[in-house]
């Protein structure tokens, strides 16, 4: 079993791991590229306000700004934890 694990790990080359990681981070960077400078701050402050009322994770908030013709839409997605 251990030998099998070893062989499996060997197959995943570090360069392909690098590529996958870069694809994710670059896509994220590009999505932020055209945003106004205040977006990260806005995101932080919104999260702060929400956290005053609900316990949510740092990455539970997703904010995006889309432009259509003559108006912009600010979209805010917050994943709230299950009430249990």
């Amino acid at each position, binding site marked *: 079993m251990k030998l099998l694990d070893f062989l499996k790990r060997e197959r995943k*080359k*570090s*360069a*392909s791991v*690098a*590529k996958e*990681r*870069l*694809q994710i*981070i*670059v896509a994220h*960077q*590009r999505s932020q*590229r055209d945003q106004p400078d205040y977006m990260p701050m806005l995101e932080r402050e919104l999260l702060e306000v929400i956290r005053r009322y609900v316990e949510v994770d740092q990455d539970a908030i997703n904010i995006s700004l889309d432009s259509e013709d003559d108006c912009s839409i600010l979209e805010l997605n917050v994943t709230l934890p299950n009430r249990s």
Partner: protein
Amino acid sequence: MARIIVVTSGKGGVGKTTSAAAISTGLALKGNRTVVIDFDVGLRNLDLIMGCERRVVYDLVNVIQGEAGLNQALIRDKRTENLHILPASQTRDKEALTLEGVEQVLEKLSEDYDYIVCDSPAGIERGAQLAMYFADEAIVVTNPEVSSVRDSDRILGLLASRTRRAEQGQDPVVERLLITRYNPDRVDSGDMLNLDDIQEILAIKLIGLIPESEAVLRASNSGVPVTHDEQSDAGQAYLDTVDRLLGEEKPLRFHQFEKKGFLSRIFGGGRR
């Protein structure tokens, strides 16, 4: 009108100055009147790589502050005709550069040169932004390594937004990828990002590929741009890069791992 080319990368130590020196030398060798400017105020190095460090009297900041004329600050390259170097100041801080000052210097140089190569400092701060602001073309120097690729993407973002061309709504800065320190051996074994992956991630056109080469350190040791080492793989790769910049079609070289066969093992064929 000169073509203004910025050599930039975001990350430090990837080969910006080596590339700026090698490419400007190549452009001049091809008969183009070329000037290469060091924008790294406080940490100048281009003079060392070009081998003219002892001939620096005045620098870019002196010119911008009106303490010296442009012609007093320009250093004529001793090896290559048509090539001049405008060094950065070693003592002033980066605030000494102003947008208006840089614009005036570039405008004046534009009258006398075909190519102005701007060697950007590392980072994305003021110095780097000034170096790219007036550019027509950008050569984004990238190593096959995660942090370098990520930083290159950041630089692409700045090129698309914080340049004169972007701000004035002109044609965008032409972005070109220069991969340096490429090791086909390690790519083949799966431990280095290959050039297709890097191109796919950054989505810009490849202008050249420089293999990891002993010639580069030799060149900087002796203060002779590697382009003059015509026997070396890196020197040839830079010459190819220059040809492509000038619009020639050149097939890519030095990117394939050569499996050493029985004969080549006996008769050599090692990397120069």
